[in-house]
């Protein structure tokens, strides 16, 4: 199974390839300008792995949540490539990707991911490591840091930039449960590829036009009656 993965949802621009179990990856911190980098980075990763697009079995991508524009750049690029190359896609949550990194890099078991969502809010979700892969418990949410509900009494590993942005309020709230923390973890395409592999093996893939963003924040404008 060969998977080409990309993510532009956050301030990391990231590509990766899983080539029959061998991982190639490249990530560059990027505040703006993912659009100028992402295709060139894909060129490089293909060259590094000595592969062509036609050797791929699917395209995996970070489907959000994240910066709205960033999410759309990544999803649009995945759509374009998958459609042109007639490949299926596997959408992967950026929160799950952060949890996966906590598992891979810190050996975490229970992971509470919180990612800065701007507007004083955070994206959050709880994950468990099941056979080394991040599995969602409950649901993904966007809310004020003080409204986070993790629905767990267990100690957990705190992962993601939300734990940095709102460190005081959140670590105080969960002081009894946070047993370790990495508040700099951002989603990477490598983590996305890893999570996508399991889905692709199970046949959980979509066609290109079914690749859509997950924003979590959906009340972005007021209708006339509400204005």
């Amino acid at each position, binding site marked *: 199974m060969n998977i080409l993965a990309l993510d532009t949802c956050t301030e990391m621009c990231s590509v990766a390839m899983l080539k029959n179990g061998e991982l190639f990856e490249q990530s560059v911190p990027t505040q703006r300008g993912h659009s*100028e980098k*992402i295709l060139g980075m*894909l060129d490089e990763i293909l060259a590094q792995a000595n592969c062509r697009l036609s050797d791929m079995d699917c395209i995996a991508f970070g489907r959000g949540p994240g910066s709205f*524009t960033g999410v*759309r750049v990544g999803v649009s690029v*995945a*759509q*374009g*490539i998958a459609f042109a190359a007639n490949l299926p896609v596997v959408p992967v949550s950026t929160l799950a990707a952060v949890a996966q990194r906590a598992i891979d890099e810190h050996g975490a078991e229970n992971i509470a991911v919180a990612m800065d969502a701007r507007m004083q809010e955070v994206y959050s979700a709880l994950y468990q490591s099941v056979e080394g892969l991040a599995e969602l418990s409950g649901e993904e949410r966007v809310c004020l840091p003080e409204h986070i509900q993790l629905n767990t009494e267990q100690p957990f590993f705190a992962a993601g930039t939300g734990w940095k942005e709102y460190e005081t309020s959140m670590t105080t709230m969960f002081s009894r449960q946070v047993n370790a923390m990495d508040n700099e973890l951002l989603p990477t395409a490598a983590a996305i590829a890893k999570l996508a592999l399991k889905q692709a093996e199970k046949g959980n893939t979509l066609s290109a*036009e079914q690749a859509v963003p997950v924003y979590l924040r959906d009340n972005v404008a007021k209708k006339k009656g509400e204005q």
Partner: protein
Amino acid sequence: MRVLGIESSCDETGVAVYDTEKGLLAHRLFSQIAMHAEYGGVVPELASRDHIRKTLPLIEEVLADTALTTKDIDAIAYTAGPGLAGALLVGAAIGRSLAWALDIPALAINHMEGHLLSPLLEEPAPEFPFVSLLVSGGHTLLVDVKGVGQYELLGESIDDAVGEAFDKTAKLLGMDYPGGPYLAAKAEQGIADRFVFPRPMTNRPGLDFSFSGLKTFAMNTWLDTEQTDQDKADIALAFQTAVVETLAIKCKRALKRTGHKRLVVAGGVSANKALRNKLDAMKGVEVFYPRQAFCSDNGAMIAFAGAMRHQAMKHQDVPSFTVRPRWPLNELSPP
């Protein structure tokens, strides 16, 4: 050579295929107007969210219409500006990535150039040089066009675009968004010369426009009436007549200044019947318009502009894409 064009600069997703031998092969459009109407105007974030759902399905439809596959496409043209940044990015990302994966050229097209060249899709097509009047919800421009990419800006609106003035005036008369076409329809029931509106910036030399004062004039006139349906129609007519005559006066000046004998009118407001009647009545000038369907935003004009540019293009193949929410026409150069 076949060019797939993608337009997503504002509230319409447009896709088309243009063949340099056979002309326009197919075009599809999805308008978001109904969605934005609920909000009283275009919501940029919602526009972007819709483009990403509609672009690929429209591409599939256009390919099915033409019985082509992506392998039959020789280049991809996408709107890179001007327009809403987030909306532009969706079309640019999909278009550029398609081209990247298909290993074919990608062309970043200026939306206004698309409009400007759109009458060339019709028969008979205007020959260069000509004066172009671009009138839409976002723009009011007079351009001296000597060839593809050879554009000299003659005049523009210093405040509201003409389509914007139509929409705003319609709104203050209580019409739904987007009110421009409703206002034009209402004007047909109006009694001529009951109200007379000024012709802004026509009593001094120059080719610039100003329409925001007309909106205020309409408001004050409206408040002085009993606000009956007939009052509404009469004000609509007076407003439209003032706009149309102002545009016609400036077009005449532009033709005189350049010495050109051809006038090309494009953009959403070029669908306005009163404007067409007025311009068609000008003597010694040939006037060209796109078909009604291509007056507003569409993919056909982007595919066409892409084809015009590609034919003479030096191959630039940087694997990246950027958009320019502001991108003046006079910064373009010939292909």
